[in-house]
């Protein structure tokens, strides 16, 4: 036990020393570069880019969520976006070749006070310092930013930054209206995106697809990207999406980026949630059916906790608070989008 604690202290000290050098290098690299202010609900996040190319790699996903320079208050966090092709590689790390772990985690390094991960596929270092609320996202090249990152940028950093103000980044979609919202939860392939993108057929809007920021107090949901993802099958079912395709290549899985309606994203920076819906693909759409909250937690927690690096007890606590605060429903979704949208609208009407 003593050896373990000593090793933890050594790695924490090494990480702190590394982070000082990293933030120094990131600050120098972004000096005079483009900046932007991202709005996530009531919070603002300052973004500093090393180059226009780096900014162009991620900013399109946040178009309607970007605040103008007159936004009031101190930003929640400051994030540096740097590319090695423009500024050289980050300072050498204090860990070796054996430290790289699943979910991009670094063995023996990182905790809730200073999170770190490395995405091997893209050569991207991500570090978050909770004490100063600053983060670095340092990738090899702006040209090599992958499609999934362009659609939902900086997800690990956003997760850690939002956690510091008691907001969870959840793997799920949100649909709603002025009556409130529904959080659609479940692992990939259960029909979340198709259900969320069908919602406008009944006058609802899609606030978020794939990821959403949810504050347990409320609970209140906010968008973290203006893009959704859709398979070719979803676009066949919802041909109106063809006019909303983003000018991005498909993801490796063949999904296309869809530009969400900007008006509700600008207007509804946060939306009070009324319930959790667990879509399940079926032969036909049926009315939503109440299910135990444990089922909602089982649909929400694993996919959120396993998809992102640096899952901590605080993330679990927030997910549990959100689950306890909301009724949960199972929704069988058939191939007719109008029926799916109507079922969502009916449920929201009954809950609001």
């Amino acid at each position: 036990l003593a050896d373990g604690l000593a090793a933890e202290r050594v790695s924490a000290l090494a990480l702190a020393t590394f982070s000082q050098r990293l933030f120094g290098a990131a600050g120098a690299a972004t000096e005079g570069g483009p900046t932007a202010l991202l709005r996530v609900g009531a919070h603002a996040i300052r973004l500093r880019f090393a180059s226009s190319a780096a900014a162009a790699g991620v900013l399109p996903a946040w178009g309607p969520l970007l605040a103008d320079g007159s936004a009031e208050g101190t930003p929640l966090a400051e994030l540096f976006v740097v590319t090695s092709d423009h500024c050289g590689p980050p300072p050498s790390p204090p860990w070796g070749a054996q430290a790289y772990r699943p979910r991009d985690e670094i063995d023996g390094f990182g905790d809730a006070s200073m999170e770190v991960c490395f995405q091997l596929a893209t050569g991207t270092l991500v570090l978050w310092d909770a004490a100063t609320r600053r983060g670095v996202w340092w990738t090899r090249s702006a040209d090599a930013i992958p499609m999934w990152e362009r659609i939902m940028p900086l997800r690990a950093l956003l997760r850690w930054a939002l956690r510091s103000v008691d907001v969870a980044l959840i793997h799920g979609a949100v649909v709603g209206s002025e009556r409130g919202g529904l959080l659609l939860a479940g692992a990939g392939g259960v029909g979340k995106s198709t259900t969320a993108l069908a919602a406008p057929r009944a006058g609802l809007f899609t606030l978020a697809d794939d990821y959403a920021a949810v504050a347990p107090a409320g609970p209140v949901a906010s968008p973290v990207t203006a893009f959704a993802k859709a398979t070719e099958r979803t676009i066949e079912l919802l041909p109106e999406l063809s006019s909303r395709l983003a000018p991005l290549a498909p993801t490796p899985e063949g999904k296309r980026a869809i530009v969400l309606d900007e008006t509700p994203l600008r207007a509804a920076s946060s939306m009070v949630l009324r319930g959790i819906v667990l879509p399940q693909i079926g032969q036909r759409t049926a009315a939503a059916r109440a299910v135990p909250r444990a089922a909602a937690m089982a649909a929400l927690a694993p996919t959120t906790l396993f998809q992102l690096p640096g899952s901590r007890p605080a993330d679990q606590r927030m997910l549990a608070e959100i689950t306890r605060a909301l009724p949960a429903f199972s929704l069988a979704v058939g191939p007719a989008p109008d029926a799916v949208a109507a079922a969502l609208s009916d449920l929201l009407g009954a809950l609001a």
Partner: protein
Amino acid sequence: MPECLLTPRRPAVLDEVFDGEAVLVNLETGLYYALDPLASQWWTALGHGTTLAALRAATIGDDARAEPALLRYLHRLADEALVDVAGTLPRAPAASAAEQTTAEPSLQVFRDMEDLLLLDPIHDIDLDGSGWPTASQPSV
């Protein structure tokens, strides 16, 4: 014989109870579990760690007929790496026909997230001169 101590493997295992039903998530294996009310009650009785004797007293009391079910359950928790066991956990007899009147806790396992870990194994990494992994994998 030294007392057997059973301790939930937090924080590697996350657990929450909703309306008497527990959900467990093992961050190391990618598996997660839905426990029925009896299994949830017995999981909750583990608290932050307890002895087998104390757990027995808190769950089945003097009902010796329920002891095999309790032991089977605890072995299952240990096999799934959901609890740490210090000391010897007595062998759990297989369920017999005579036991069919006693309740058996149910622990439903979900493996759909397991692939996320399997698809991302620990890599053999080559480092470049600056100490960072080389760009050996194509970006997408």
